[in-house]
């Protein structure tokens, strides 16, 4: 199986205690009171789409039993989730924030941050920002490891 953000820790464990700490942080992200695992999974898929990472998109997330509904996946992968009438205002605010974060965190607006904070509070906003950094970083490391281990296939050509 190609390496993805979801099974990264097994591959990084040779780095010792820093990798163990990062693995613990990863598990904490899926058990907190601010963003549900399902919504966080929609964030992961949004970032995977922005990275055009088909391996990451295809991976099944064990932290989200049952996964997303087909409709949710379709909306996220089509880039339409942040404006969909089928999602709640919280989901749309978080996914709109995620979309901009994935493209360029410096482009985030005060209005986007305020909209997220209006649903999950200031601590929730900070948590979301941390979580997006972890998700995006893990997708990046997985891509690098696939290149380092020669398991990236055409992906390696893509970044040449």
């Amino acid at each position: 199986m190609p390496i993805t953000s979801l099974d990264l820790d097994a591959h990084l464990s040779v780095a010792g205690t820093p990798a163990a700490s990062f693995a613990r942080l990863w598990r904490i992200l899926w058990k907190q009171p601010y963003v549900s695992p399902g919504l966080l999974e929609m964030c992961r898929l949004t970032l995977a789409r922005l990275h055009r990472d088909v391996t990451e998109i295809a991976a099944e997330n064990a932290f989200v039993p049952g996964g997303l509904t087909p409709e949710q996946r379709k909306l996220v992968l089509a880039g339409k989730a942040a404006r969909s009438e089928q999602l709640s205002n919280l989901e749309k605010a978080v996914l709109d924030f995620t979309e901009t974060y994935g493209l360029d965190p410096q482009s985030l607006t005060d209005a986007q941050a305020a909209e997220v904070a209006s649903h999950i509070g200031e601590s929730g906003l900070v948590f979301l920002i941390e979580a997006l950094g972890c998700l995006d970083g893990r997708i990046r490391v997985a891509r690098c490891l696939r290149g380092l281990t020669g398991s990236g296939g055409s992906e390696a050509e893509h970044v040449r």
Partner: protein
Amino acid sequence: MSAKPRASVSGTRTGNPIRDSALGRVAETVDEIVTLNHEVWHQSLVSPTLLEIIRLRNARTVNCVFCKAVRYEIAREDGLTEARAQMIDDHYRASALAEREKLAIALADAYLGFPAGVTPELARRLDTEFSPPEIAAMLVALLAFNFTSRTAVSIGGMPEEPLPLTLLPMTAT
């Protein structure tokens, strides 16, 4: 970039820059983030110099004004002088940095690129200089530096202009 922070600081005065920042507001994650930062600086399989080179390359790419203005004492004591830190720029390949240091920058650029990814040629070059555990250690450090600096940028409140350099003592890590 927002001139005003979008989240207030934690209100604690522990002396730990992570715990006392807005990250301190998230009780569920702050302890592990502090631990991660400590582990990266004190238990990594690569030298503090290499870690600082990676951190500064990330700070430059993310444009984190705070991160760019900090120098870690632990790396300074390991031999990364300010003159050498200044070599981590667009012309680093022609600089006096060692081959291992240049490769660490190339790995950071591979991680920070869009799309991220390591070419077969870079993979071969890294393999000649570093063991797989050392490469994993650099990737974990990159993850830690990148997500915390992007968090700082996203929270906002950064000055537009560069800040004076600050040497961060080992006790802060």
